[in-house]
């Protein structure tokens, strides 16, 4: 346990010293500013339009429009946040083992009385904490911006953010497993390739659900089994979207075909298995 903690601290320090944290913070704040400005203009347009609608009960219409508008715009923001977290996760972990092996910095570490599994777990925990903080800043900032401007909070906010975090963890773990045996570039390439697969698989499943095409749905499910990141986003969107959005059908940032809880359980197993593979491969690796 102590060794894992030493490596986790080292990972944190490396992220700070190599300006990864600073870069993430600065660009994250830029993102939030841009998002807040965009939200302000679009949302005020939505409320104005809703108020102008001829209706026997203008207050109720405005109320619905506000909630639906704020919810949709927030999911747009969180979708972008989820993507940025994934990119961050892939990049953080792609270079970690392979980079240290190719530069040779790993040599004085693995020849100390430490298990290789402790090195992998320590780094994993370090990255997981970094991603958690990043998501708290970005996702929390997005939600806060919407709350301040529209006094709106979604349902199941923590479940939603948790699922996005989980999605980032999946990508980070795959990236790390690849990094234990491939070069950083190859690891990054594979992770983004898989992400693309999950992304397109998710869309095929969505269309399949709308068109009631079972084959398309199955294709999507297979893609989710290969890499379950996108299905986590869809579950997150499902948790946070309004009931009305669910009934009305597909928006780019909501979801129709909802991954089941069994799928979430599968993803947990998937994550653990990937982590174990990362450890095993690194244990056998000649450095």
């Amino acid at each position: 346990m102590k060794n894992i903690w030493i490596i986790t601290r080292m990972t944190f320090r490396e992220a700070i010293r190599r300006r990864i944290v600073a870069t993430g913070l600065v660009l994250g704040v830029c993102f939030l500013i841009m998002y807040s400005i965009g939200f302000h203009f679009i949302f005020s347009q939505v409320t104005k339009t809703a108020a102008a609608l001829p209706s026997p009960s203008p207050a109720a219409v405005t109320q619905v429009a506000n909630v639906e508008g704020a919810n949709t715009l927030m999911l747009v923001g969180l979708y972008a946040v989820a993507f940025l977290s994934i990119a961050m996760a892939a990049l953080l972990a792609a270079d970690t083992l392979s980079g240290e092996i190719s530069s040779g910095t790993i040599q004085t570490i693995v020849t100390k009385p430490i298990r290789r599994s402790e090195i992998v777990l320590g780094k994993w925990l370090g990255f997981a904490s970094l991603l958690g903080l990043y998501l708290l800043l970005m996702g929390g900032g997005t939600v806060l911006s919407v709350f301040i401007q529209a006094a709106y909070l979604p349902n199941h906010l923590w479940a939603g953010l948790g699922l996005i975090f989980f999605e980032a963890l999946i990508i980070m773990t795959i990236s790390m497993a690849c990094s234990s045996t491939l070069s950083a570039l190859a690891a990054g390439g594979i992770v983004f390739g898989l992400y693309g697969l999950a992304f397109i698989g998710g869309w095929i499943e969505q269309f399949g659900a709308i068109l009631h095409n079972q084959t398309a749905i199955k294709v999507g499910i297979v893609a989710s089994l290969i890499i379950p990141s996108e299905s986590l986003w869809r579950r997150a969107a499902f948790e946070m979207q309004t009931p009305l959005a669910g009934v009305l059908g597909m928006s780019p940032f909501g979801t129709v075909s909802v991954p089941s809880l069994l799928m979430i359980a599968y993803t947990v197993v998937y994550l653990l298995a990937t982590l174990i593979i990362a450890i095993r491969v690194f244990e056998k690796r000649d450095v």
Partner: protein
Amino acid sequence: MAEAFAIETHELRKVFGDQAAVKGLTLQVKQGEVFGFLGPNGAGKTTSIKMLLSLVTPTSGSALLLGAPIGNRNMLRHMGFLPEHFRFQEWLKAGEFLELHGQLYGMQARALRSRIDELLERVGLSDFRDKLLRTFSKGMLQRIGLAQALLNRPRLVFLDEPTSGLDPVGRRLVRDIIHELRKDGTSVFLNSHLLSEIEVTCDRVAFIRHGEVVRVMELSSLDVGQVNVSIRAKGLSPEIIAGLSQWGWNIQADGENIGMALSAESAMPEITRYLVMHAVEVYALTPKRASLEEVFIETVGKDGGL
């Protein structure tokens, strides 16, 4: 401390693809000795060391380090290692770097702090404790790497080309540190291609070629039995030259130069007196030990084993 050998390997073998990098390494390093590991480029030295350090998994064979199998974590607690390509976490400060590695050895904070002070002083980097390794020169990195290898007061130290980045002052420092280690009873496994350095620091050397030990020798045996001297003098006659045979053999004269073998250095003043008495003008009388370089070339061949 009961085990007789610091390192004992038996037919250690590593195959990459269809190429055997190390064919079968069998050697013993005694407790407390400084052991030199010699061989031409590509002879399998680096792979051998990496196997001993559990960086590379052997294809077959076995080894005991300090009586424990390769990679045993309790054994690693008593081992130190300075890698050949001393690349370290350059985003750490020198003090932090040593702290990290000391923590990985499981050292207590207080003991570690005083040990770091001591070692920074020893390698001449006390003033650079709070400087990032990124700003260090090659020589400074090698010095901090050496300090890192000694943090835990190891019983066995692997030094892989420990002076490759160092100037003469740094080389001297490494040599002195190795002498100190020997005095403390630490076993040192030294891989270096600087034969002059091996010559002055090691007790024994192993020559390896094509991934096998071809010869192990005591370095003190280099001096035993024979001193070659070269003489440069004017006014030599065949009779005078012939008279030299009372002190040595293998006399070869070539104009003003004479080479011969003596059984001991103590004959040199007598030879000088003899030559001067016969009105020979002596310009030089130089002892030449059979150098490790000669032995090296004789052992691994001029082609370097390629």
